[in-house]
């Protein structure tokens, strides 16, 4: 379905089900979720709070085990993919370790994966440049603004060669301008590296601006209500958001969202 070459499925979910057993009874976080993400896709997940966006991403990253259905990543089980270090995961908060400098935070996965010293330094330099943080490697996280921290955490996920980038509301805590800027950079990066990206957001413009495909979800039980293919070109200046196509897609997303939303909570 994706443009260009023949699509190659990276993530494949069939009738995925996940129920949490809690003290107040079971919570049906995912129900009958079917989704295929192809190589090079940029898929956004949008939906009201509690609809299972995070849960789905966590299933893909083998941080959660589905209670039903099948899920394969690169043709193997998510856990096997995890062991092969197929994922870069970016959380909502930057989640940098405060006792490490920015550079050493980015080194963390490299140390764990056993890269050599010189490789580590080289890669840290590369990704710091990529996210526009050159010169800040020696600072501690709390000495940086929120936007810079978030970029550092993206750099950390990029430092090793994961094919799949999973991002759970990475820009939720940032102001709109910084967000716009990071969105632009993320698009550029995606274009350059051809990674497959799964991206959770609450912002309709963000979802529309970034994605090749937008997955709209609704809660109780968490399920997919709509999958919208974006007609926008791959080249997207920020101004694209004032075009009628963009507004049209955004409108569709909003309608889809509203349909699944109950106002009383």
């Amino acid at each position, binding site marked *: 379905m994706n443009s260009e070459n023949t699509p190659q499925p990276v993530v494949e979910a069939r009738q995925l089900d996940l129920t949490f057993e809690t003290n107040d009874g079971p919570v049906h976080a995912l129900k009958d979720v079917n989704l295929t993400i192809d190589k090079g896709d940029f898929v956004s997940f949008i939906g009201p709070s509690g609809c299972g966006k995070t849960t789905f991403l966590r299933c893909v990253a083998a941080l959660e085990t589905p209670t039903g259905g099948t899920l394969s990543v690169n043709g193997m089980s998510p856990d096997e993919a*995890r062991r092969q270090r197929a994922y870069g995961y970016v*959380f*909502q908060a930057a989640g940098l370790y405060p006792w490490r400098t920015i550079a050493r935070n980015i080194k963390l996965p490299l140390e764990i994966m056993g890269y050599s010293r010189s490789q580590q330094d080289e890669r840290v330099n590369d990704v710091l440049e990529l996210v526009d943080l050159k010169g800040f490697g020696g600072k501690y996280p709390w000495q940086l603004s929120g936007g810079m921290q978030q970029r550092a955490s993206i750099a950390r996920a990029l430092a090793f060669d994961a094919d799949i980038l999973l991002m759970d509301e990475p820009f939720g805590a940032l102001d709109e301008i910084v967000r716009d800027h990071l969105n632009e950079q993320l698009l550029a990066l995606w274009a350059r590296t051809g990674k497959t990206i799964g991206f959770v957001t609450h912002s309709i413009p963000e979802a529309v601006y970034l994605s090749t495909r937008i997955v709209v979800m609704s809660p109780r039980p968490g399920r997919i209500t709509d999958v919208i293919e974006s007609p926008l070109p791959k080249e997207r200046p920020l101004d694209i958001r004032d075009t009628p196509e963009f507004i049209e897609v955004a409108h569709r997303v909003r309608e889809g969202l509203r349909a699944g939303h109950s106002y009383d909570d």
Partner: protein
Amino acid sequence: MIFVLFAILLWALGWWLNSRLANGPQADTSAVRLLVPVIFGLTIVGIWELLVRGLEVPLVILPAPSVIAERFVNSVPILWADFVQTILKGALSGYVIGCAAAFLTAIAVDRSEFLRLGLLPVGNFVAALPIVGTAPILVMWFGFDWQSKAAVVVVMVFFPMLVNTVAGLRETTAMQRDLMETYAASYWQSFFKLRLPAAMPFIFNGLKISTTLALIGAIVAEFFGSPTVGMGFRISTSVGQLALDMVWAEIVVAALAGTLFYGLMAAIERAVTFWHPSQRG
């Protein structure tokens, strides 16, 4: 009576001075932070001296600070020998052994949820055993010299340290742990790179609490049998001989040593956990 009046005056003066300093523009400089408690302490000592002289409190009840200071200066060799016996041999070795053992136990406990559930309540129970009961038993087991004092200290510091370390090792956020998971990090990788650094503030909390416990434990244990040297020995013997100035000189040593020990741990803590919000001010 005039002395009592002076004492009241001195109190007013000290308080006024401190109010000026604490609410003044320099209140946040480290000099003032040190000066204010020192002035407070000096005021108390001054009042003590004046009241003891003014109310003619007998020496055998409460010696004046000047008498204590004199005794202190004249007994430095004895005080030093006691310090070496009690603090350096008894308290310090017990502290090191107890904290290290608690730390290793904490790692074991942390690896097994079952152990943690089972051991911590039992640990809290054991920690509630009063030292005045355990000390005689340990003296009976480990002899009269510093080894039994170290054993008492081990028993006293073990559980506070264990509880703090276990709590610290669980201190990481789910997100931090998930991050390690996505890297497929091994247990020890995530231990050394995540959980240990994150636990440091708690570990130091335990280390700090344990400093005063260690001193008290070592001194108290000497009440239940000791060689003829040591701070607890000297205190109990001196009380019997009505040499209260000596008792207070030893108390001064204990307070100085305790404060230094605590201060040292706090300083190391500041250096190690510089990143923690509580240390960033």
